[in-house]
Every structure is written in C-alpha cells, then in structure tokens.
C-alpha cells in the first residue's frame, strides 16, 4: 500500500471527484492511495447525516442538567478539592461550593432533568438523550476544542466532519459534504488535514450578502464577470491540450465553473424568505436575542435536508469564569430556542430518524467557584473549566430518546457510571452512520490513522 503521497492519475481523479465536492487534490487524494474506504457505510446505518451544535466555551452542566445537593447545601462554603495537586489554579484557591440558583427539574414523561433556563429544550425532553458522563482530557479551550473536533489535542488531524465526508461521500454534487456555520477562528476545527481537501469544511455565515468568502463578484456586471470567466476557461482549455488532460488542470477548470455557480446557488440556499412565518418564529428568527443562532439552525436543517453530511453550528458565549449566575441566562436565551426548534422541525418533517443531532461544549464547568478578583461576593463568582465530567445531549439518528445516561459523584466532578469519553462519542457517532471507527482509516507517515486514534468504544447503552 502506498502512502498518501501518490501521484495522481486522471482515473483516480475522476473517482475522487465522484465522492468529493467538485474538487481534486493533485497529490494524496485517491481512495486507492492512502484510504481504505469506498465512500460507503460498512454496515446498515441508523443515520445518514449529523448536525453538531457546538456550545463553545463550556456550558455549566451543574446549573443546566446535573445539579448537586452536596454543592447547593454548602453554597459559599469551602469544600475539599478533588483536584490533582499538580495543577496550578487561579481564582479557585478558596474552593467554595457554588450552588445552582435556577431550578433544574424533571421534564416530560422521561423525567430528564433540565434547567428552567432552557424552557424550549424542556418541552422536548422526551426526544433527547441526555449524556451526563461526558469526559475529555484537557482543561484548556484550544486543546479541548481540538480534541472534540479531531480527537487529538495537538497536531493537525482531520476533523470529525471530514472523516464522515470521507467515509460516506456526498449526497449532493453541488454542495460541500461538510459545512460549518459561524466557526471559530481555528481552521483545524474543520480542516481535512491529510485527508483529501474535498472533505474539508466549508465555512458559512448567515449574512446573505457574503455567506462564503470571496463570493461577491468584483466585476461591474454579471455579464462582464461571465465574459472574464469565459476568457479564463478558453486560456485554460488551450493550456490543458498542451498538457494532455492533466488532472490538476482539469480540476481547476471545473472548480471555476462550480465557484461561478456557487455565486448564485449559495445566496439561494441562505435565503430564508421562502420559509413560512411559523417556521421563522419557531427558530426565533426576527427576535434579536435568537436571530443569528436561529438562522444558523434553520440553515442547518435546510442544508441537511439538501444532503450535506455534516453541518456544524457554533454558538459561543459559555465561558463563564465570572458571574455565572448573571450571565448564564443570556447564553441560554440565545441558544435554547434555536436548538430545540431544530429538533422539533426535523421531527415534524420526518427527518429526525435519519439525522443525528449533537449538542455539546468542549468541556463543562466546576461545581466550585472561581473569582479572579479574589474579593467578589460568592453570588457573582464564576466557574472554572472541567473536562472530568460534563453534559451533552443527542437526538434522533437512532439514539434512545428520553434516556438520561451517566452519573457523577456527589460533588459533580468524577463520572461514576456511564462515562463517555470524546473518543467514545466519536465511535458512537460513526457507528450510527454505519461506519466502524476502527476501519475508517487513512494511511499517513506509514501509519493507519483513525478519528478515534487507538481508542473509543461504541456506547451501545444509548442506542435505540
């Protein structure tokens, strides 16, 4: 088996573009080169698409889903630290318990516990599977986010969406198979690394004028732009003849046409004017608090419906180092309605069964308080990062609805049962898509790489 550096033949290129997004890598793309996947599932899938709602910053699970009597009873009082003594801390030296100020109650028939801060999610409690034993390895944003997206805390590895695109191919030749709405700055979170570039995420904003970079034409009229493109293509085709149909040359000619088409198809895709008023309202579009996230979630549904394999929507604002009680309601307000609307909408359209929705941050927050000033009263303290345990939820895609899975200790620090490490989460998502995480590999530097590295177990207990 050759490495991923193999040179490219036209036949390989045709194969590759058939399963990518009108794209070609001059080196290292052919399925035959480094990859072992045919672009088909390994076994019968439960889901065909994923929508990942990424709550960047680390939502406070103890305030939202997993309240603790032990902490509430000791609010403002010192508790004993379960932390590893090797770690430096800032603002948490006093180790004060920080109670939950807004009630977290059992909801629906399932009794899934959800905070009053998330009334919309509470209304679909029986549709989601709450994961309370989430576990990651790094307490800092950048490496933790990288691990959540790529399985690795450093290094440059393909992101989850890229692996899925590579594993399943695209369902729509005119759309990327992986779209990420409002991503953070780090391109690694949606990069394809050593996988073919056709599997990288395309970033999108809900701004209808410029949803994708460089989409607005610079020529003074449509006609002139087309005439210029025709000239480009004439020159390219003549050049192609002289090089006898080299893959890269041909690839760029097609990429040019696709780029041109995207100038009209993309604004159409992000144009929500034809959605019903009821739908817009459902997502909170028009309400300043929810408009941006609402549009993003509605777009996610539309793109998913159109066949995009992996759509990610990033919603930030969860990094509450200070005044978590004061700031958490705002973060919930902006995201609760759009996220719940997405599940409701998918369900109403009969798409929820085949669409796996995941809601998660990169980690959770400590049950004890953080006060960077050292002098603030307890009620305006925040919480520090906590990868040891946190909460996420999934819906649809063959995941058991109405289930609460995983328990943490009295304090809400260690997982005591139902632990799901990031690698397990990745393995489970791939499993629902009909992909065996141990078989979805790409050879790079002599080694077969996986999303789950050498780890990961499918969590069968949460499968319907």
């Amino acid at each position, binding site marked *: 088996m050759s490495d991923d550096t193999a040179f490219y033949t036209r036949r390989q290129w045709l194969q590759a573009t058939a399963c990518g997004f009108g794209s070609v890598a001059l080196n290292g793309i052919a399925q035959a080169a480094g990859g072992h996947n045919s672009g088909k599932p390994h076994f019968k899938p439960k889901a065909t698409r994923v929508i990942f709602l990424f709550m960047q910053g680390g939502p406070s699970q103890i305030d939202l889903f997993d309240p603790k009597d032990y902490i509430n009873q000791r609010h403002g009082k010192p508790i004993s630290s379960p932390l590893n003594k090797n770690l430096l801390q800032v603002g948490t030296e006093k180790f004060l318990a920080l109670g939950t100020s807004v009630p977290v109650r059992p909801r629906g028939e399932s009794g899934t516990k959800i905070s009053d801060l998330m009334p919309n999610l509470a209304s679909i409690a029986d549709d989601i599977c709450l994961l309370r034993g989430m576990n990651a390895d790094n307490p800092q944003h950048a490496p933790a986010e990288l691990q959540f997206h790529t399985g690795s805390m450093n290094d440059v590895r393909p992101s989850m969406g890229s692996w899925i695109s590579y594993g399943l191919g695209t369902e729509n030749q005119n759309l990327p198979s992986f779209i990420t709405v409002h991503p953070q700055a780090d391109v690694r979170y949606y990069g394809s690394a050593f996988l073919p570039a*056709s599997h990288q995420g395309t970033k999108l904003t809900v701004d209808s004028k410029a949803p994708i970079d460089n989409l607005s034409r610079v*020529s003074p009229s449509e006609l002139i732009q087309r005439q210029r493109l025709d*000239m480009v293509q004439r020159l390219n085709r003549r050049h192609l003849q002289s090089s006898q149909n080299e893959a890269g040359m041909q690839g760029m000619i097609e*990429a040019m046409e696709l780029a041109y088409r995207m100038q009209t198809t993309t604004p159409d895709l992000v144009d929500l004017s034809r959605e019903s008023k009821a739908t817009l309202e459902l997502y909170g579009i028009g309400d300043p608090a929810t408009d941006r996230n609402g549009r993003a979630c509605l777009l996610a549904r539309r793109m998913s419906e159109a066949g995009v394999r992996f759509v990610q929507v990033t919603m930030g604002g969860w990094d509450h180092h200070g005044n978590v009680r004061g700031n958490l309601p705002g973060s919930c307000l902006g995201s609760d309605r759009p996220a719940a609307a997405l599940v409701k909408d998918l369900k109403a359209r009969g798409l929820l069964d085949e669409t796996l929705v995941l809601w998660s941050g990169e980690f959770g927050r400590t049950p004890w308080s953080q006060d960077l000033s050292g002098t603030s009263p307890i009620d305006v303290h925040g919480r520090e990062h906590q990868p040891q345990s946190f909460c996420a939820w999934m819906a649809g895609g063959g995941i058991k609805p109405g289930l609460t899975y995983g328990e943490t200790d009295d304090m809400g620090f260690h997982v*005591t049962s139902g632990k799901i490490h990031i690698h397990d989460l990745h393995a489970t998502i791939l499993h629902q898509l009909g992909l065996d995480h141990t078989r979805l590999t790409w050879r790079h530097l002599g080694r077969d790489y996986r999303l789950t590295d050498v780890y990961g177990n499918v969590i069968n207990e949460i499968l319907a």
Partner: protein
Amino acid sequence: MHARRFLIVIAFLSILPVLQASEKPVDLTREESDFFEARIRPVLVRYCYECHSSESKKIKGSLRLDHREGLLAGGETGPAVVPGDVQQSLLINALRYDDGLEMPPSGKLSDEVIGNFEKWIKMGAPDPRTTSSSTTTASLKSKTVDIEAGRKHWAYQPVKKYAVPAVSDTSWPIEPTDHFILASLEKAKIRPVAEADRHTWLRRVSLDLNGLPPTPEQIQAFISDKSPEAWARVVDRLLASPAYGERWARHWLDMTGYADQIGTSNNVFAEHAWRYRDYLIDAFNVDKPFDRFITEQIAGDLLPWDTAKQRSDNLVATGFLVLGDIEIVNPDKLQLEADLADLQLTKTGMVFLGQTLGCVRCHDHKFDPIGLEDYYGLAGIFRSTRSVEKIDNGIWSGITVAKLPESPEARQKRMNAASEHARLLDSLKESKDKLTRQKTDMEKAAGKMDADKDALKKKEDELGRKMRGVDRRTRHAQYFKPAEPRAFAVSDMPSAADTQITVRGNAHALGAKVPRGMVRVISWSDSADIPDGQSGRLELARWLADEQNPLTARVTVNRIWQKLFGEGLVRSVDYFGTRGEKPSHPELLDHLAMQFMQGGWSQKRLIRSLVLSRTYRLGNTADAKASAIDPENRLLWRMNRQRLDAEAIRDSMLAVSGELRVIRGGPGMPLEFPENSSSLEPKAVNPPAYSLVKFRPEQEFQRTVYLPVIRSAQPEPSNLRDLFDFTQPAQISGRRSQTIVPTQALFLLNNNLPRKSSIALAKQLLNQSGQNDKRLAELWLRVYNRPITASEMDEAIEFLQQIKVSGQMAGKSGDNPADSAISQSGDSSEILALIELCHALLGTNEFIFRQ
C-alpha cells in the same frame, strides 16, 4: 544453518529480576487470603479483566492483572503494584483517578473500594494467583526491539558511494544526476521527452529558486544570451539573490511549526519569533554549511563563538526547538515539560532523520526498530534543556528568552531611542494630567444648578474615551520600551540528567530510568558519553550532523529534490521508516547524499547541479508510450507540473503588477500599533496578546514570508495561505499538498488581491505604451513569461472589445471599492477592459502552475 547469527535483544532489565523472583508460588496467611478473595479479586475480575487478562481480546498497555507477576511487572512502563508502598503503586493512582491515569475507564470506583486496595498493598499485596501460562513471558519478550535485524532496512544502511552509471545516449547527460536518471529510463525502455523551451525553463527555475517569476528584462537577457553558460549565469544570479533565502527559508519554516504566536490559546504573541525567521533567511543566503546549520539549531547556545554576530546567530538558531505549538497554558507544569520534550524530539526526528519518534512515547514503535529506550534516551536530553518558564500571568508559562549581544552602534541607537521614549511617556503623562484636570472641572460644573446635563454627559463620554486612549498608549509604551535585543532560545538545565519513562506519556506516572543516548538503529557506535551537568544536545547535534549518520543527508537531499522535481526520490519525504516508500533511484539518492556531505554540506551547490541537469530541463509534454510504462512518472521521463504554493501565488501577483516592495526582515507582527495588543498590564491573569486590527501600509506589498503567521487562521493580508495549502503552523511537514477546491476558484475570481493587482498592472500597461499589441505582448511576458501567440493576440483584442461594450452597458463602472481607480482615468471602459483581461490571466492555470 544460522549458527553465526547473533541477535542482540535488549530487554528492560528492570523487568527481568521481578519475573525470576516471582516464579515460586506464594503462601498466603488465612487472613490475607480472605481479604484478597473478598475485597480484591472480585473487583479485579469485574472491572479489570476485560482488558488486562488472558480473557482480553487485546491486552491493553501490555498489563496483566490476572496474576501476581503481571501486577508486579506492570505494563509497558512500570510496576502496577509495589508491595507495601501505596505511593509508588501506579494501580492506586489509576483507581484514584490521579495524574490523568483513570481506571477503570467506565467510572471511578468508590472510596471504600480504593481504600481496600490501599490496605491490601500495605499488607504486601498478598496474591495467590500465579502465571497460568507462558503468555506473560511471551508478551514481555515482545517488548524488545531487534536492532540488528532492524538495520537491514535500506534507510538505516550506511550511505554508499556509487559509480556514475553508463548510458547509451551519451550526449543526453549534462550532470552526473542525468546518468542515473537516463540509465533507469533506458532500462525501462522509455525515452525522455524533449527539453522545455527556454521561456518555460526560466520561469520554472525562477519560481523554484526565488519564488518569483522572471521580469521581462531577465527574460530578454537569457533569451539573447547564446553562450553555453547562459543557464549557469541565470542559476548563479538566482542563487545570489536575497530572494533565494526568502524562498527556501519558508520551506524550512514548514518543518518548525513557526508562528508569531506562542501556543494556540489566547492569541499570545511571540514577540521575538521573527529573529529565527530572519536567521534562516540569512543562513540560506550565505549558504551556511548544513552540518553547521543543524548544530546551531539543536545546540547553538552551547557552541563557542568569535564574534557577537556569531553568538547572536547561535542563540537565535535554537528557536528551532521552542517555536511550535507549545501548550503554555497547561496548568500542570511537569506535564508541559514532558509534552514539550516530546514535541522537540518528534520534530528533530522528523526533520533530520525522517522518523516518527513520537509514536514511541507510549510503546515500542509498531513498525520500526525503535524502542522506548531510544525515545527516553532522547527525551532525557530535551528534559535536561530549559525551554519554558513560569511567567507572572495566572497559570501561564512562557518560552525562555535570551539576551543577545549588542553591537556598540545598536547600543547607541537604543540609548537614543530610550530618551525619545522617556519624552513620549512624559507627554502621555501630561495628556493624562490635563484630561484629569478637565474631568475635575467638569464634575464641578455638573454640580451647578444650571448645568446642561446632556451636553455634560456628552463631554464626559468624550473625556472618558480620550483617557482610555491615553491609558492604552501609556501601557503600550511601558511594555514596548527600547530594550536589548532578545530571542527565544534554550539553555541547559543545571540539573541535567537521565529521565524516566512516563506511562502513556503521563509525566507523573513514572517507569524505569533510561540513560540518555541516540537512536540505536541509526547509530554506528555506542552512544557518545554525555558530560556531567550537560544536556547532551551538543552530542545529539554532532550525531545528527555526522557523515556516518545514514539518514540526515539522505533525508535532506531528498527534500531538496522534491522541491525541484515535484516528488521526492523517496515520496514519503518525512518518513524513511520501514513503512515509508522505497526510493525510486536508490543509487542516485546515495550519490547525492554523498556529494552533499563531501561538498561541504552546501545546499546551493547541490541545488545548482540539480537545476543545471538535463532532467530539470525536460518539458512537461505528454507521451503515450512513456505514460503506459510509467504512468506516475517515477522515472522522470518528463518534468512534473506543480501548482504554486500560497506564497508564490501572492508574491507573483504582486511582482507582475509591479507592486512588490523590497522590505527585508524585522518583526512581522505590527505590535508598534497600540490597538494591536491587549493584556499588557503587569501580572494580568492572561499574558500579553495580539489582536491584529491594523497592519503597516507596506505589509500589503511585502513578500509573504515576512507577514505574521498565526496558528489558528492566517490574517489579512495573507489569508490566501489557508486556501492554498499552507502548512498549518502546528504541523511539521516537509511537503505541501497541492489541492484544487472551489474556494480557491472563488479567490481567483473575486478576491481583492488579484483584483488590485490587475488594476495596478492595467494602469502600468496603459502608461507604458499607446499600442494595443505592445501592451498585450508586455502583459503576456509579465504574467506567463513568454511571448504572446498570434491567436492569443486576436482573442485578447476581441475580449477587450467585448468588455468595452459590456462596460458601457453596465454604466458607471465599479461597484467594488477596489475599482474606484477606474473611474479616475479617462476612458473608463478602456481601462476596465484591460483590468478584466489582466484579472483573467491572473486566474488561469498557466499562471498558478509552473510547468
């Protein structure tokens, strides 16, 4: 049959005595037995056996917990249980979920259960279970690496001297390289294609050596030079150009994880990183011998020096070890050190040796004859090196900084700057005082009965804004005061010593101590002795740069080959291990490696001989017969076409439009603008950070290598890097991908860079000549570096006409700010047509590829 075959099997000596000692059965007292059976065995069976017993499908971490020997011997890196010593027993750490080692993974066991295990270990860990079969012994034996057998892999064999092979067509070869290439082709019965024309060759060699296309004058000079020396004259000019260093230093930066940022979290700026970049550019330009180049980067701080410049270079060079994605925010400082050592040795292994040493952090290499002993032998060297230190910001660390020697002139300059700086601080203080007085006056006014509240509020806001501005400028001035030159550099720790194995890379879970040393399978003699109190970096550097090292020269010449010919002789340029690719021309590779070492490790000399070869002159034309035999062109019957990398695309656009400005070196990050940084207060919770909102005006026109590199995403004006396969600055890679995706096409169609370049280019063409055909000829020469053909001329004229008509139809031209230049000129439709033509050309394959 193999009577004289010796296998040197190096086992972990710490494990063997344990095995021997525990072979006899153990007698337990009744009490011990009861305790074990009631409290310990059920837990082990229930929670541990799935992964750590004969029942396991795969024994995780080579750890067996279903017999006493397994517990005592432990896993890959150390005993799980030390009878009587709870602190030293890894099993307890794991059960307590301490130190990142968390077992069982499904969830932490209750304190009661963990307490029972502690009690049991204090009792001496009585355990009636003995080795049930020979599997333990077998699994332990597999933990050894067979170095002698491993040496058989071609890349670990010494570099050999080969005679230049004979060929039938003796008129073809120019350089010795050509003999090797032609001999292989003749053997495969392939005829190489014809040479490329002179224009194509000149464009190729200019882009490859300088990263810039030739100018019309340079083209003219070469085309009219009829002497046989014409090619050599061009190559010598290109190698002597400072642009050569700017091009090739960037290739090297791809292998360092370079960024103007430390780590990835919180946008922490790497204030001194640019010095390493400038050091590289200079090193390539002066053709620093590669063995010296290695030594400076690994151990420059330990080298003697004659001049201040030399000392400065030596220190700056060690930036190689500390520029990269270092997690300085890691709150666990011991772990940070272990991770950094891993980064350093992984980088060193890949860059100089083409080995994946990072794989060996947790276990022996799965494919290559490299064991934990090799990894931790090197890790000891890097753990003995000071690279990071705790800083005064929250939990953060920083990269260690060294003061550089200062020339008397520089010192004088700094003194002058310092007095100017003092004046600046004074004037800022004055402004602040003035604003404070105004505020006091205003507060007094507000107290009066007849105060106009709205006007006062407005004034108050205004004052507040001004004061914040002054504060920001003051903080900025205080932070960036004129200082002695400094660089990120390493030094030896006074406590330099051997290091211990870390279990699964966990810095707190320690296994056996390993003596420092080099990678055995690559070594030709016993490892050099490392003097007491020294890290061993100097010995490492010498070992890497030794002519007996089988890998360094091969890996290096292969990467140079790849940059010039598109593919390496070994295509897996960063991996020469057993699963890497075999060389297409093993003898040529050795020939080049040998020449390289014997020619004083001169990169310029090597590059010169390669680009003057016949092989490098070949055209890119197709050949059905050759394609049928060698479809991947492994034998180089023609030149491989390459897409320009991000830097060459941007630099070429600026160059052909005449916008490129020669501004060499210096900080890439424009931190002199106060708005570009934050968190400058002493002892802030987070370290000083950048927020790049303003660039120097000239940065828009500077070569891409000098623009700041950001680890998360590339800033304007170099964000095309992210579209065109820039090596992520968290990655170490000797090879860039060459992808084609629609977002690149969108860039070429609509981005400001090609648009602005087209406008500048069109204006110059208009100024240069009144005649259409002269303009077009000039355009073709600038962009494609060749004469325009007659049919292209017709097509271009027709296109210009077409756009003129469309332009008039579109009415007032330009709804893009970049096009405002158009309306300023006389005949707007004429210049628009020319802009569109220039823009078309800059978006074509012929421009973004080199043949």
